[in-house]
């Protein structure tokens, strides 16, 4: 009952507790968090221990990815995104945004594949295979060599071509005002 005294003024008419608790929810266990947490940060936090290079990635890509993205990651126009190409096009009238030309972090490529690919049955690739297909795609883009091993330590150090291609929101950028 004493907790009620901690109610502060309201938010849209709803009384809100300052710092005290409604005591809803249950403390999450470390195991529970580990099982659910798939966040990968750009510094590599969250990456599982593992390794893979393009040599190991090629057969995985052929088996799991090529049916949609094409054997060389060229995509299918209007049907599936290309995973290669587009370098040097971003400032042209016909920019081609791909993982290789546009995405600023290699960790994002790894994370996207780990969360979302292969499209129909995601979350089936063990970490080593995610490292390996990521390496294969980065190799197709000329970003790493064919035998460079990607690991939880080296992946965050890969410098993507468009690493410095982003600026934070400058809106409102159009200054028609009254």
């Amino acid at each position, binding site marked *: 009952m004493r907790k009620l005294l901690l109610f502060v003024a309201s938010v849209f008419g709803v009384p809100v507790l300052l710092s005290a608790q*409604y005591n809803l929810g249950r403390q999450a266990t470390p195991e529970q968090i580990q099982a659910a947490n798939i966040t990968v*940060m750009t510094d590599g936090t969250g990456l599982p221990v593992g390794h893979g290079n393009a040599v190991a990635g090629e057969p995985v890509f052929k088996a799991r990815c090529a049916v949609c993205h094409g054997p060389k990651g060229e995509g299918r126009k209007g049907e599936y995104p290309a995973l290669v190409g587009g370098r040097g096009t971003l400032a042209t009238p016909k*920019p081609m945004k791909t993982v290789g030309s546009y995405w600023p972090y290699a960790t*994002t490529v790894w994370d996207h594949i780990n969360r*979302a690919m292969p499209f129909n049955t*995601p979350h089936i690739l063990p970490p080593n295979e995610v490292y390996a297909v990521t390496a294969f795609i980065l190799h197709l883009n000329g970003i790493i060599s064919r035998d460079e091993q990607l690991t939880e330590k080296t992946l965050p150090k890969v410098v993507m071509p468009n690493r410095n291609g982003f*600026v934070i*929101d400058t809106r409102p950028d159009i200054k028609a005002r009254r």
Partner: protein
Amino acid sequence: MARSRRKFIALSTGVTAVALSSCNKGGDEPSTSGANMRPYGDRAPQEKIQRTIRELTASPGTGSSRTPLQDIYGIITPSSLHYERHHSGVPAIDPATHSLLIHGLVDKPLAFTMDDIRRFPAVSRIIFLECGGNSVGEQSGKFPETVQGSHGLLSGTQWTGVPVSVVLREAGLKPEAKWMLAEGADACRMARSIPLDKALDPEVLLAYGQNGEALRPENGYPLRLIIPGWEGNTNVKWLRRLHLTAEPAMSSKETGYYTELRPDGKAEMFTFVMEARSVITRPSGGQKLTSHGFHEITGLAWTGRGKIRQVEVSVDNGKTWADAELQEPILPKALTAFRFPWRWDGEEAVIQCRCTDETGYLQPTREELIAVRGLNSGYHYNGLRPWRVKATGEVESA
């Protein structure tokens, strides 16, 4: 008795024998007792308006469906017609087992069942939701023929839920926490990083209610994030996890997508706010005026920066503008309906609207927008949308 009464009617009204032989039904409406009540209602069978569906890849579940704005009344979109945008289809989630995990830079990581979430004090807010990619083609010169095609990734809803700030307070935030990764339970685990300042804004909700009932599956059942005024994609659906972090995770949807390429080849990221925009929904492309004379021009205006202050309409191809009347209620970050009386003289006319929000921001023309952003930024296009009423009465994009 009966005989004298009939005589009395015949005398007093002078009606003919024909009329007398049948009762006056009082019109053509049915005279038999109607259909039974239904536990869950549906619209009349004659009413056919619907979303239009477009897949974006050869794999179903990566596309969008659009709200038929030309046929919607008022500022609330029926849940069945709310726009959709998915990245790996609509997941089937059991609310009895669904849980929301809050962890990372918090004092006490917590997991909530849906029952837990619904026990918090609830708030309801009427807001608009617009996909960051609404009208993505208009900037580069592709003008869909209808307002559903050009603006249909826009809907208005009363959402109900608990402020995120209230739930985060249960876990206790560490001072290093600056971002909140919100993650969905769809197959692709769609995830966006939200600046913590915004997440703590009391208007940001963990929503489970949509127009008075549970969320529709395609709109995030059983739980979603609602960030009033921010691009649809940040309003993560099927919410399963909130991860408090010091930095943004740079997920694929905040780097590879929902970023806006400028002419210099650099791209703007974290462009969250949907800026002021308006459109005439009637008469609009694909419709036909069948007679001269009075036609009410109606439409919608909205802004992610608060309230709409003014809507102006031009019926002479932008030469002159006059104020439209705003329909109450005018709510912050909600659709605002407007109307403008118009007498169509049968000549070809180009009609359009523009809005100003409470910050003084004026909706730009397409030319003004392109002058700053070029042709390839794509997302967040909010230029004016003229319609041409032809002498035949047909309306097309101008």
